């Protein structure tokens, strides 16, 4: 099967520090790929490169046959890439439904959006999304009233609303309770197949629950790729995590 997302020899450095050093990764369509690795391995940087937040100094990013590395962020988003940030990023003064409404970016031009929606035509869709992420009760409250876990879910809901082909998630379960994490894993299982997902995660329980193939990064490079069992048995991976007692405790 041809790959949906392809990173080829991607390098980037900050003040001489090579955050990514000829990184290669390819993800199939509909796959849920987990990206793990010790702190500073370049996981978040890899997501930043894909969504255009950082421009690579070398290498190419191909998504659905389109090179992304020279496009601006909004152009990459329009090409079908969605991104959830590590620090939950929502519109705090807007209500939950307004947050979801903005994320449903069917039309992106200024003049296309100079219109009123008196019949509230998107309401039904927004209500369905809110149900999916368990925020039905909060629909008309400002996002600043939400708990940390709820804010995380709102942003995940916004990415579902955006309906991007490729969804990049940076530590989606950070700050969530065990129960919330389990519900998130269920949600991801539903997104898999319809969307291609790349998830950066530290919680190995979560990774094992959702991931097909796990990519392990170390010092800006791809160290190993495979199923959870394969990766855990990999000698290089054990060495990279040396002293932390295997990746389960990472």
């Amino acid at each position, binding site marked *: 099967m041809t790959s949906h997302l392809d990173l080829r020899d991607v390098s980037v450095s900050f003040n001489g520090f090579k955050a990514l050093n000829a990184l290669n990764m390819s993800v199939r369509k509909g796959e849920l790929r987990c990206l793990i690795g010790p702190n500073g391995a370049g996981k978040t940087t890899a997501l930043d490169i894909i*969504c255009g*937040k950082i421009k690579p100094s070398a290498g190419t990013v191909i998504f659905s046959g389109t090179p992304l590395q020279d496009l601006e*962020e*909004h*152009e990459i*988003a*329009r090409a079908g890439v*969605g*991104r959830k*940030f590590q620090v939950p*990023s*929502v*519109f*705090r*003064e*807007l*209500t939950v439904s*307004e*947050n979801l*409404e*903005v*994320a449903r*970016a069917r*039309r*992106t*031009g*200024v*003049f296309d*959006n*100079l*219109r*009123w*929606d*008196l*019949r*509230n035509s998107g*309401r039904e869709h927004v*209500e369905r999304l809110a149900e999916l992420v368990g925020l039905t009760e909060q*629909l*008309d*409250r*400002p996002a600043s009233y939400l708990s940390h876990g709820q804010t995380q879910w709102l942003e995940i809901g*916004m990415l579902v609303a*955006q309906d991007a082909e490729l969804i990049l998630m940076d530590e989606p379960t950070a700050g969530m309770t065990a129960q919330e994490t389990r519900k998130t894993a269920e949600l991801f299982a539903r997104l898999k197949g319809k969307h291609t997902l790349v998830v950066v995660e530290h919680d190995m329980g979560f990774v094992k629950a959702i991931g097909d193939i796990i990519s392990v990064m170390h010092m800006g490079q791809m160290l190993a790729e495979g199923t959870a069992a394969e990766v855990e048995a990999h000698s290089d991976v054990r060495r990279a995590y040396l002293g932390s007692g295997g990746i389960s405790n990472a």
Partner: protein
Amino acid sequence: MSLNVSTSSGLQRLTVQLAPLLIVCALVFALPVLLNNDFLLNKVARYLVLGILTVSLGLSWGFGGILNLGQAMSFGLGSYAMAMALKLKTVPVHTGADGLPDFMVWNNVTSLPWFWEPFRSLTFAVAAGMVVPALVAAALGWFMFRGRVTGVYVSIITLATMVVLNLVIIDQQSYTGGFNGITDLAQLEIFGVAFDAYGRATYYLVSGCVMLSLLVAFAFTRSRAGLIVQAIRDHESRVRYFGYDVALYQIFVFALSAAIAGLAGMLYTVVMEFASPTFLGVQLSLSVVVWCAVGGRQSLVGAFLGAVLVAGVQGALSESAAFLETWTLVMGALFVLVVLFLPKGFAGLAQAVWRWIVQRRHVAGQEVTPGVSQTEGST
């Protein structure tokens, strides 16, 4: 911003949001019935114009998150556009050929400069009074927002740009009237109606423009584009990763705000009967920020009332010797207090009180008739 329970229809919500706006407009229109004093009405008209200017700042600052400290630049451009047209309509006693403005004669200018020519047409002047500020804002916005300049840097750039224009106007005395501005203007006349600064017609013209600007601003903030602009205020990069070109939205709201400020500037010339470099001065520009913050920058009606009431009180107090000097202190203290205790201004306070009343009524009503729809909100 509004809080709504899902049972309320869009139309119902619209009514609730529009109500304060329409009530304020009705009061503005009804005032001449109560206040039969042309001198005072002229003063009120002046405050109403400043209200429009403050609404324009609320649009870019409160909704777009762009604190334009040079908002008075657009106001001044509009004011000069109107003054230039009205100057060319005067029949001065001591002029040169072709009704050359008096100050040009004094400065040994012999023919009308090219950029004054089109202002022989009032239609052109009225259009220019809004289009020129909008274009200047769009150009400035293009550089700032494409370059991702944000926050305090936007404020510094806008303030500096205004100061430069102010200095140019003062410096180019032979073309602009310099420090004295443009005085001795003809009366504005549209379709045979003469707008005497102290006449009812002018008051109603200003009132009509108050309503128009409030409605246009309201329509924009209620649109999807208005929602996206507010999202940009809250989290700029988040909006970008949904595929919106953030800079274009910022440029749009910046230019719309400038056009409304330009309209206010034109009216100010009609009401004051002159244009002056102080109309695009730092003092006025900063006062607008204070009025906007006190009234409530995220509320159009709040920003409008903030300007009208604070400027009105200022006008009344500064006539007494005791307050002439201390007024600046009073205003500064008011600003500090509002920033500290009412981050959303008096409009935010009013909204909180209204929400509390509705909630209490809702709780009380629930015991008798469960399922009463609850609607809250304000413009």
